[in-house]
């Protein structure tokens, strides 16, 4: 077996697992929809207000949904000993970990892509910003999984790591939130958002290369 076989085997296994636990896997998506619905209820349904808030609301909700789903990334592997077996594989842990992160994104990030435009429409986001919203989601939701993986890997060994996880991960999410919602905001106002998208893309590429390193190191610490 080769390294690429191991990489794809991890993605395949995690997708299969998500399919077997589909009720659980759908939770972040429901959560996302629910949080977005809460905003009009809280601030009132004035179209102007909602329209101007739409990029922020969608992105904050996406962020919270990602945060909620993070804990599941390594939790069951840690509990049933699969994580130990992963660490003992002769293949580089960084590559295996990247497989896990990608699988996590496919399960939790990808569905957001499908629902978000619909919700954005509910909030009255102008049609001209839809494309940009999609692009930011495509580029930046994987970033949420990559950055979040560092936080989960550090806290997976803790019995009550949930609160600490948010404290660790949310400051790291701030730039993603700013650039992503900023880009949609600009697009909604008819301005070009290329610079923000480029920055997000650069962050994604950097995170793809760099994030697996601290994640692997943190997992090694956590099985201790």
């Amino acid at each position, binding site marked *: *077996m080769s390294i690429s076989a*191991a990489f794809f085997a991890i993605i395949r296994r995690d997708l299969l697992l998500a399919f077997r636990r589909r009720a659980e896997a759908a939770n972040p998506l429901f959560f996302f929809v629910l949080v977005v619905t809460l905003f009009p209820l809280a601030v009132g349904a004035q179209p102007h207000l909602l329209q101007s808030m739409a990029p922020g609301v969608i992105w904050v909700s996406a962020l919270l949904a990602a945060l909620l789903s993070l804990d599941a990334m390594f939790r069951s592997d840690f509990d049933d000993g*699969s994580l130990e077996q992963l660490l003992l594989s002769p293949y580089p842990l960084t590559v295996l970990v990247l497989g896990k992160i990608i699988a996590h994104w496919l399960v939790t990030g990808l569905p957001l892509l499908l629902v978000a435009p619909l919700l954005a429409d509910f909030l009255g986001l102008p049609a001209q910003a839809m494309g940009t919203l999609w692009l930011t989601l495509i580029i930046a939701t994987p970033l949420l999984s990559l950055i979040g993986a560092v936080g989960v890997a550090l806290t997976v060994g803790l019995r009550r790591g949930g609160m600490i996880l948010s404290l660790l991960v949310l400051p790291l999410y701030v730039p993603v939130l700013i650039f992503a919602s900023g880009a949609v905001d600009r697009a909604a106002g008819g301005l070009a958002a290329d610079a923000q998208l480029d920055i997000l893309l650069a962050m994604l590429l950097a995170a793809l290369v760099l994030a697996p390193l601290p994640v692997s190191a943190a997992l090694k610490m956590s099985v201790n």
Partner: protein
Amino acid sequence: MQPDQSGIMQQPPQPVLVVNNLSCSRDDRLLFAELSFSLAAGQVLLLEGDNGSGKTSLLRILCGFRTADDGEIRWRGQTLDSGSYYKEMAYVGHADGAKKELTVLENLRFTQALHSQSGYDIDQALIKVELAGFDDNSVQTLSAGQKRRLSLARLLIAGAVLWILDEPFTSLDRRGIALTEALIAAHVRQGGMVMLTSHHDLTLTGLPLQRIHLNSCQ
């Protein structure tokens, strides 16, 4: 050194795993200090000692999960991270390391993908651990003893030389224990190595058995 065909039986076997002056402590408490031993092809090493004497910690250090406070471990003369160690070892711990939502076959396929060396194929391994015919059962339907045997199948599939087993006999019935001992014996006769902890009295007759007793030092 010229290999002498006639004298090969008298020569002490060449150690493959060498542990030198290993020390480990947990929460200010010294578990063991200056522990040295070596393991050669075809040998079994049994770790004995009370609960909390550091048996599991030692095994976890050998897996690379823990770092020792002091000392070194060499596999074929190289450190664990630089050499071929992880290609040639496999570990069964307290947890089964299997996904309960997946079937036996799916779990073992994944094990196969994670290892670069190829050992037994899945069907053979399942026959060896007497789980043939359970391929499509999901792991959560298996009994505790069957899950243990599934872990043993993992060892066979990984094609490892060194087996590290932490309490492999727990939750096994008499038949399961006999089966596990037979697997260990067969592995060792083929030139494999086994390191294990157990509360159970081993009946590995005729095998070169090393015992290390870890006292809880105060």
